[in-house]
């Protein structure tokens, strides 16, 4: 059935805007109505521009309006990217030729063409990222402005690479535009739902085991790397995690969890909960196309599906977005998935890296213990 009750995931246009706006020198123009502009503008923590087209432009064409907005930006913006929304896409205008006198990036990624990941990948492909053999370091992948943990993830992986004396290559997509075309040969991932595919992937950074494996691979390809500080930190912090989880299990049963997130974060959460808390993973509801997991798993697109799964499994721990948190139920809740509305979030929290795992376990334990009080 194409219809969907309370769809949970944004459209391709939002994904394209999130990708492009992550580059600090790209100014993003949403070519469409004010309604299409306002949503990414509230979700993405960077300034966006809009053409705010009206009925007039639908009838007589949007060229003049597009030029007007671009003329206002030329000279002020280092690089401009135009993202198409649904209406300009179906009008049949030759927007590329309208823009031929401007040095702009055009991304045809209307909302109806897919979900947020589709738009993100489309925009990234238009930027034509490539490896520069002379570039040293390790790229960081999977930084997407749509992900509220993106900023924290990047900071954490930059910190860990620094601990290992490894220079940072290009951060996809949180860097300068020119860096996209000069990426290093090797990449480590954060949120792999937004993987760039640039450079040889050495592995992810979600969970201590994955970090350890990935840094071993870094050591094998970077002769200057000294990963011993990272290994020591993993060992030290894992002991703290084990101690905290063990203490919890002395008093309480392991959580019975239902997880709703993008597949990358959901798989991480399921693995960690099972590993450290012997949790029973009742269901993993992936917001995007799921991969394979050793737990019951499916693609959950609408809120009514979420509510029916929570009623069916009656978990004592739910991980998800503020949509899941809004359910009138007694489960412990941990926010892992965008959007996380209704809370103030200023500090750069991470899911990736050692700090990300610590923070995740800390949130889970506190939520579960608060529920028992």
């Amino acid at each position: 059935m194409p219809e969907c009750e309370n769809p949970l995931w944004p459209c391709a246009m939002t994904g394209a805007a999130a990708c492009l706006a992550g580059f600090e020198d790209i100014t993003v123009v949403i070519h469409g109505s004010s309604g299409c502009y306002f949503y990414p503008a509230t979700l993405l923590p960077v300034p966006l521009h809009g053409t705010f087209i009206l009925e007039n432009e639908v009838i007589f064409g949007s060229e003049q309006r597009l030029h007007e907005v671009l003329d206002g930006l030329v000279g002020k913006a280092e690089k401009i990217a135009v993202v198409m929304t649904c209406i300009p896409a179906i009008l049949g205008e030759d927007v590329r030729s309208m823009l031929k006198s401007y040095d702009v990036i055009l991304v045809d990624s209307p909302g109806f063409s897919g979900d947020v990941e589709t738009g993100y990948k489309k925009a990234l492909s238009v930027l034509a990222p490539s490896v520069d053999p002379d570039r040293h370091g390790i790229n960081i992948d999977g930084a997407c402005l749509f992900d509220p943990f993106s900023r924290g993830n990047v900071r954490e992986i930059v910190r860990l690479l620094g601990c290992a004396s490894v220079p940072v290559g290009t951060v996809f997509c949180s860097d300068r535009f020119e860096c996209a075309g000069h990426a290093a040969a090797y990449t480590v991932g954060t949120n792999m739902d937004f993987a760039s595919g640039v450079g040889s992937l050495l592995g992810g950074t979600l969970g201590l085991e994955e970090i350890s494996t990935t840094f071993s691979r870094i050591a094998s390809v970077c002769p200057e790397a000294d990963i011993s500080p990272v290994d020591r930190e993993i060992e030290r912090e894992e002991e703290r995690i084990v101690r905290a989880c063990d203490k919890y299990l002395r008093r309480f049963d392991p959580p019975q969890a239902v997880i709703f997130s993008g597949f990358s974060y959901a798989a991480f959460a399921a693995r960690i909960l099972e590993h450290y808390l012997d949790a029973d993973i009742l269901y993993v509801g992936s917001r995007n196309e799921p991969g394979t997991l050793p737990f019951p798993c499916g693609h959950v697109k609408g809120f009514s599906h979420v509510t029916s799964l929570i009623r069916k499994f009656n978990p004592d721990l739910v991980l998800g977005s503020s949509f899941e948190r809004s359910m009138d139920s007694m489960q412990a809740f941990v926010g892992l998935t965008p959007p996380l509305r209704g809370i103030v979030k200023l500090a750069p929290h991470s899911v990736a890296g050692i700090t990300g795992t610590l923070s995740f376990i800390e949130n889970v334990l506190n939520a579960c213990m608060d529920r028992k009080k």
Partner: protein
Amino acid sequence: MTSNPLPLNLSRSGGCTLTGALSVTTRVRNTVTIVHGPKGCTHHNFSLLHATNLDNDRVTIPDLISTGLSECDIIFGGEGALERTLDAAAKRDVSTVFVLSTCIADTIGDDVAAVCRKDRGVPVVPVPTGGFLGGTFQNGVNNALTAIADLAESCPKAWCVNIIGEKNLEYEVEENFKEVTRLLAALGIPVNLRFVRDCSMADIHGLGAARLNILRDEDLHEVGERLRLRFGTPFISSFPAGLAGTIGFLESVADNFGVKSLRAVREEKVLQEAILREFDDISGTEISFDPSVLDSDTFRLACEVAEGIGITIDRDGCRVPAEISPPVGTAGVRRMLHRWRRAIHA
């Protein structure tokens, strides 16, 4: 907002008709709203409504269904998708199904009204929205209020007022309502219906009972007129704004009900003077405003309050916060003064 609207065409930043209409229809209990368009339009609005609900300490989820128009529907027409979605929604235990279109549905020329005419055993109410093609956010609000009002029948008048068109996405919507009810209580007048904020279709059938409608602001004039013609109910064109405006509001409501306002007015003036005295410490300071509010009612109100307290408005003064919508009533002025003080002391 970072944009480049044409200076003569304010509707560019006027928001989406669909969002405006949804801010109304999702506040009628036990109903469902179908959004005829791509899934993204529904998600965007679902997420925005959810965020503003949370801001108002309201954790319920708006009940929306997207017809999920795909590229194929856009080429061959989306009426089939709407039919299917409507048939499925009508089987649910709801009192009414609202159907809202989007700019995409309007551009491809789907006849939404025709699809909605089929009898499905439950009232199906199409609300004219076409994203930006239907006008602005406010047009969406007005269209939805009008469509819902048309479902109500005439009924006997009672000693009460209706509140019409509260800004459901406004952060301080409940505080504003509380202030209006405080003023009404001073005159001994209760509220019949908040049209539309968390009411049922059964409540809405009592829409015509009020002796007076109080509109949230002047943008709702056409709704007020429509209700006047339909139910014979006069209206006050906006919530009270400013010190003198609040006194005027009390007098105007009292006139409509034929009651005396002298005591309520006297007590309100005493309260206003006490509030101004609370802020004696910022008397003698200089303040300025964001130029975007200089032509607004907020600015006029701010001038009145600044004069009352002995503050000078000067281009080089300390920049204090101001919203486009003026603060409501005496309590709104007090909150505004706290924000001024915070900015002056910052």
